[in-house]
């Protein structure tokens, strides 16, 4: 049955859900308080790296990330086709770089579980590491090489999603300032700051770091906190970096447009999105440990966004038990870009009642209890 769906939030998760729902024939309206892709989505470096981002082991979050990584080839092609926009999507593989002998024991454990979950990871060192990533510092002891990981250029991806949605007939309304859900059980009604009322059959909540505002409305605890991510970019035409390079302190990734993007801080700073010297200086100092040639370079661009982190690190995904008109999809923290296709598919499946929610129990939006 085709339904009238309201998507709250025009970040990468909201736009992806809208894209998938529209593709399945639903009537979709995206409501955005400021502008699409303005927060975590715009600040993202676009790493599609579930193996490197989950250093501890294959939990439910990793599984969702892996599902998403595997959806990406087809998903990104569909977004490009629908939007007529291109964006970088590079299957570069990743290197997780370490500096001590003592890191190798943990690498063996990680390699083991990664390979059991579809990767062909291996530990590289010495001459082989030098050949794979020639400009990497020579005191890097070893790296875990995971060829299956990719990255994309997030600002262009989000733009393409937005454009694709528009061309397919999704209505996108920006600058709504403040949204209030006034009815969510017998139907959906959302009121904007200017008094306009939007109504529909179903509501998908993709408001990221702002999802907590809906606690009172739905009567559930929504422990989502904003964590600021500061990020910077160097002009790096003369410094080829071939892989995504991760480390315990941050990551670097070279983009097609000749920039080297480096992130990211995790600051506890409320909803403050300013870029600080301390935050960027920290990244700079660490970067030259990985790539000594960065010693004398200054980042030409610095920016920040708020990432929605939950209390247990997992997103809130799925319908509310008190009304399946409402489906939550928020709290993706550092992995919104990666998780966008799997989230979109899951949300659309919930809406179409295609899938039982059991398999995503770890993400139940009510797991933190009721007010």
């Amino acid at each position, binding site marked *: 049955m085709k339904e009238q769906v309201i998507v709250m939030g025009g970040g990468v998760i909201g736009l992806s859900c809208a894209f998938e729902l529209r593709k399945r024939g639903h009537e979709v309206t995206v409501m955005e308080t400021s502008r699409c892709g303005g927060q975590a989505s715009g600040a993202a470096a676009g790493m599609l790296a579930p193996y490197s981002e989950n250093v501890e082991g294959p939990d439910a979050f990793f599984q969702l990330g892996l599902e998403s990584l595997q959806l990406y080839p087809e998903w990104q092609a569909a977004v490009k086709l629908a939007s007529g926009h291109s964006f970088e999507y590079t299957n570069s593989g990743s290197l997780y770089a370490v500096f001590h002998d*003592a890191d190798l*024991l943990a690498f063996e454990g990680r390699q083991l579980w990664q390979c059991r979950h579809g990767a062909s990871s291996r530990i590289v060192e010495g001459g082989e590491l030098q050949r794979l990533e020639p400009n990497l510092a020579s005191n890097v002891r070893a790296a875990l090489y995971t060829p299956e990981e990719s990255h994309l250029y997030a600002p262009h991806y989000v733009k393409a999603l937005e454009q694709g949605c528009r061309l397919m007939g999704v209505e996108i309304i920006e600058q709504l300032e403040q949204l209030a859900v006034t009815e969510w059980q017998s139907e959906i009604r959302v009121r904007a700051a200017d008094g306009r009322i939007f109504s529909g059959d179903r509501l998908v909540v993709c408001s990221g770091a702002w999802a907590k505002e809906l606690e009172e409305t739905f009567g559930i605890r929504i422990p989502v*906190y904003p964590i600021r991510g500061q990020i910077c970019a160097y002009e790096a035409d003369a410094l080829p970096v071939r892989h995504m390079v991760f480390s*315990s302190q*941050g990551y670097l990734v070279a983009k097609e447009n000749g920039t080297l993007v480096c992130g990211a801080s*995790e600051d506890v700073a409320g909803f403050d999105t300013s870029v600080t010297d301390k935050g960027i200086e920290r990244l700079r*100092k660490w970067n030259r440990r990985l790539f000594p040639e960065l010693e004398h370079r200054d980042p030409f661009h610095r920016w920040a966004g708020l990432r929605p982190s939950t209390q247990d690190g997992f997103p809130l995904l799925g319908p509310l038990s008190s009304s399946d008109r409402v489906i939550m999809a928020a709290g993706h*923290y550092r992995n919104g870009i990666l998780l966008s296709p799997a989230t979109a598919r899951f949300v659309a499946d919930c809406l179409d009642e295609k899938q039982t929610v059991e398999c995503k129990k770890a993400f139940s939006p009510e*797991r933190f209890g009721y007010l």
Partner: protein
Amino acid sequence: MRDLFRIGNQELSSRFFIGTGLFPNPHVQKEAIKASGAQVLTFAIRRINLESARDDSILQHVQDEAYTYLPNTSGARTADEAVRIARLARASGLSDWIKVEISANERTLLPDPIETLKATEILVKEGFTVLPYITDDPIMCKRLEEAGAAAVMPGAAPIGTGLGILNPYHLGLIVEEASVPIIVDAGLGTVSDAAQAMELGVSAVLMNTPVAKAKDPVWMAGAMRLAIEAGRLAYLSGRMEKKKYASASSGYEAFKLN
């Protein structure tokens, strides 16, 4: 009640040592550490930005409180490796406390007792305050004490398993024999495990995963703190004797009509 204990030249009132790893984000990490009341924080040296600890991705968030750092040598497979990274940690100005953690098996991460003893001997000579992580073997724990360990840290179960105290009998013996603080390190899962450890008479417990991987790490940190305090008080109070049959809590005398 002032119930302090001493490690090296430091007096401590909190009997909860907490690990800084595995938290979902720095906000939760900070709040959980605060709720734990811990005075001693542990972390893996290999993950730290040793050139500038203030900039480290984890330590930068705990700068504003006066914690004692207990860096650990996790990942080291030999005494040599452990000694090398311990020296790096001290040289960086982090701390001269060191938790020796040497594992030879990536699946169990159980400590290698021979290498642990060697590293402890070397680091004690070099003036470190050494807290070795070791299996719950009473003789081995005694040997580490004799080698100059400031405290000995037997594991309850393998790291991160949450299995609880697998051998309470051994742990009891270790406490009986010890003349340095015994700190249960690794393998605890929940509050009853922490209380049980304290009831056995250990001086403190060290935990990370049971707090960081709780659905609400901040609440769990507070719960653990209470459990540790309760277990400690119970130990000091002395439990009643176990009896086979029921007995009225008031004696017959109380019921006599006169």
